[in-house]
């Protein structure tokens, strides 16, 4: 029963009950009177009725005032006190009661506040201890999560039904976004969006047939107890070719409980393979063609010596042309091949020649005591190296030089030599014999105890480099050996592996708890609120008059899965309302006409949001407003939101009926939620989501567990009658 009704009933009862008793006593008294006495009394009352009425009036006024006083000093403060105390008990320990009402109640409020303070400090203490205790296992989890996040491969972990339990950034990058046009022309709207997220379905981002095929293959292999149980397939998305490895996850009983999909980007490899193949084909075709004519012509020259001079000349000319062609074919092929096949299995990185020299100079001084004087050479290009092996190779060469010519100081000079960067090691005196260089090349690279199981020749081979010895020609050009390394003027960006940063708290996309979840569809109404997936959203508009033509300028949304807020899985779009935004609205949300110019229209954005919110419960603060907006747009977009809806404004009123103000900031403050980016769609959506999560346990205390309970309670709350 509502507080207002209680108050009315109490007033009526307290007012009429004393009157009823008074009149009862008078009536009984009347019954026992003799007729003469009654007559006398009537007579008196007729004369003195004014006194009686005044007395009754005063009595009623007195009663009324006492009642108001009691209600304001005891009844209202007691109810508020109870709700605020409950608020403290149910989680917001930093909340303090404003003392109100009678002295006793004020005293009680102070006691509860003091108690809350004690509890709060104890809780902080406990939390600190828990945090400490957890930190070690958290660190391990975070290492795994950070490792996952920074893998160059995309990873999706799914349960057997295909629900995504874990994913990494790369998987999102590879798979999420605008859907590629389906070459098979299956039932799909062009340009539709696909999302990767916890609790979403793998079938949304990978062709279900391929997944099913892979799963069948895995099951088959598991049954046959094969050692390699993975299945492979290739998909194409966002102009990338992705090789997908599907591997099973087995539980402790070796039962198939889920699967991992690992996505390798093979676009570059395929392109390279394609180019290599093309090169190979054109090489063989050209060589064969040239050989065919040369062979035929020569055989004719040999077999028919008496041919005319003119014919003989023509055949000779042909042979000459074709041999020249052969040379050109070889040159072209070598150039082309060298252009993209400098890759080796060795992990090479780009480095500027002078930077490489800097590293070598430092290491040479430390390891071999050789001083290198770099003559201020300007960089002439980039090289690709494995810094460890190349440095070791350099040290090896320097060490051999030192032993051969007995010096430990060398000048270094950088020279551009055609396709190569030339690193010259110079000294005064005679040159090194080529046979010495050849000998060194055959030796295993070793400096002291440090070494690699490769010869100098092998390391040079991996780097496509060479080495030559040159005698001195003048004082400015003394004897030197030159190390040639292929030069790259504009380095391709290395496939950078981001630095793995351990997050302070558990990353949001890291969640194993949904492994044994029931199906997604059966009877949403009877499902527990904590088990449902939510899309919490907010909109910003050109104004508040929806029916009068105000339109959406921004939609922001986040997801809640397994009662956990996933800020990473957000929807954040500016939308061109196709009409000017009034200044007053811009002041409110900061979105200007310039900002929305060129942004998608609602016809494009709403289907994307619809897809984002698929299979979830929609949550908004004052949802009636936002739902009405979505409904208005139905006629432009044809998109109908049939998701169940919950409203944090109503739920807050359900939980705290006597705390009148239920605007977003007040609720946030009351529940101890931090307000971020107020009046941006995404910021408000995040605040709303945090509030919603705080409301869930409070609702449970009131016996509101399921979707049905929540909806019924919301309907009963009087604010639900507010219509837009």
């Amino acid at each position: 029963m509502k507080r207002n009704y209680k108050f009315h009933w109490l007033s009526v009862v307290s007012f009429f009950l004393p009157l009823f008793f008074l009149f009862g006593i008078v009536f009984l008294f009347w019954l026992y009177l003799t007729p003469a006495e009654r007559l006398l009394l009537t007579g008196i009352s007729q004369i003195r009725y004014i006194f009686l009425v005044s007395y009754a009036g005063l009595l009623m006024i007195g009663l009324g005032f006492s009642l108001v006083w009691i209600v304001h000093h005891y009844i209202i403060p007691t109810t508020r006190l109870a709700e605020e105390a409950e608020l403290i008990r149910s989680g917001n320990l930093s909340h303090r009661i404003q003392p109100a009402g009678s002295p006793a109640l004020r005293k009680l409020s102070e006691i509860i506040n003091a108690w809350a303070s004690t509890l709060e400090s104890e809780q902080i203490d406990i939390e600190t201890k828990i945090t400490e205790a957890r930190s070690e296992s958290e660190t391990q989890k975070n290492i795994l999560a950070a490792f996952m996040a920074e893998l160059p491969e995309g990873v999706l972990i799914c349960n057997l039904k295909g629900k995504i339990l874990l994913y990494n950034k790369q998987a999102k990058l590879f798979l999420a976004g605008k859907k590629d046009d389906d070459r098979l022309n299956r039932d799909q709207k062009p340009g539709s969006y696909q999302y990767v997220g916890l609790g979403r379905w793998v079938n949304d981002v990978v062709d279900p047939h391929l997944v099913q095929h892979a799963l069948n293959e895995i099951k088959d292999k598991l049954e046959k107890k094969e050692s390699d149980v993975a299945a492979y397939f290739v998909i194409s998305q966002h102009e990338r070719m992705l090789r997908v490895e599907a591997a099973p996850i087995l539980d402790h009983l070796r039962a198939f409980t889920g699967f991992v999909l690992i996505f390798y980007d093979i676009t570059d490899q395929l392109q390279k393979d394609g180019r290599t193949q093309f090169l190979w084909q054109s090489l063989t075709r050209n060589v064969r063609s040239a050989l065919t004519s040369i062979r035929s012509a020569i055989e004719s020259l040999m077999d028919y010596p008496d041919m005319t001079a003119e014919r003989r000349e023509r055949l000779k000319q042909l042979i000459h042309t074709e041999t020249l062609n052969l040379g050109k074919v070889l040159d072209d092929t070598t150039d082309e091949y060298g252009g993209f096949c400098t890759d080796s299995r060795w992990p090479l990185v780009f480095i500027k020649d002078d930077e490489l020299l800097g590293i070598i100079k430092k290491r040479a001084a430390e390891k071999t005591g050789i001083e290198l004087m770099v003559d201020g050479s300007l960089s002439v290009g980039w090289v690709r190296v494995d810094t460890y092996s190349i440095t070791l190779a350099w040290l090896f060469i320097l060490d051999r030089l030192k032993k051969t010519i007995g010096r430990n100081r060398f000048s270094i000079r950088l020279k551009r030599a055609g396709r190569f960067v030339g690193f010259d090691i110079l000294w005064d005196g005679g040159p090194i014999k080529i046979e010495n260089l050849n000998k060194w090349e055959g030796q295993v690279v070793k400096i002291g105890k440090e070494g690699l199981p490769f010869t100098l020749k092998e390391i040079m081979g991996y780097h496509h480099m060479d080495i030559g010895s040159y005698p001195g020609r003048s004082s400015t050009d003394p004897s030197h050996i030159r190390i040639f390394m292929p030069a790259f003027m504009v380095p391709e960006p290395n496939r950078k592996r981001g630095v793995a940063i351990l997050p302070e708290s558990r990353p949001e996309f890291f969640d194993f708890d949904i492994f044994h979840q029931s199906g997604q569809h059966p009877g949403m109404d009877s499902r527990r609120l904590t088990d449902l997936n939510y899309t919490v959203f907010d909109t910003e508009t050109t104004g508040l008059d929806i029916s009068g033509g105000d339109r959406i300028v921004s939609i922001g949304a986040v997801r809640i899965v397994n009662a956990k807020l996933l800020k990473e899985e957000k929807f954040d779009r500016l939308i061109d309302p196709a009409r000017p935004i009034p200044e007053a609205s811009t002041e409110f949300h900061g979105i200007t006409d310039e900002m929305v110019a060129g942004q998608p229209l609602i016809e494009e954005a709403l289907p994307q949001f619809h897809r984002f919110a698929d299979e979830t419960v929609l949550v908004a603060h004052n949802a009636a407003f936002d739902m009405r907006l979505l409904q208005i747009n139905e006629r432009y977009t044809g998109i109908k939101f049939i998701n169940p809806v919950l409203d944090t404004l109503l739920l807050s009123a359900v939980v705290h009926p006597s705390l009148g103000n239920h605007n977003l900031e007040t609720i946030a403050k009351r529940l101890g939620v931090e307000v971020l980016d107020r009046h941006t769609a995404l910021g408000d959506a995040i605040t709303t989501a945090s509030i919603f999560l705080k409301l869930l346990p409070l609702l449970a205390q009131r016996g509101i567990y399921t979707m049905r309970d929540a909806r019924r309670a919301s309907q009963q709350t009087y604010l639900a009658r507010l219509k837009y």
Partner: protein
Amino acid sequence: MPKTVLIVDDEPNIVVPIEFLMEQNGYSVLVAGSGEEALEIIAKYEPDLVLLDIMLPGVDGYEVCEIIRLNPEWQHMKVIFLTAKGRDVDVAKGMVLGADAYIIKPFSNIDILENVRKLLDDPP
């Protein structure tokens, strides 16, 4: 009357020595640089034998062979494919289409001559 051989290849430097070889051995020689040209010449002169390169721009060797075999009046016409080593699939496809022989590039003059003579029933 000398028998006629049509050489179809888009590489002039291959055509020249074969043309010479055929002429030296008493054949009358026609030359085409593309499939389309070959079909025109075949329709006009009905050569006794066609030396047919497979990789031709436009209409390729297979199509030319197929068209020859589909015409009942040209059943006597012999077809030799000129193909590359390692392209076994070319040989298989060509023979299915009704070619009489194939020669792998780079070929010897003897190879080509023997095949031509055999198919045209000429003495070696």
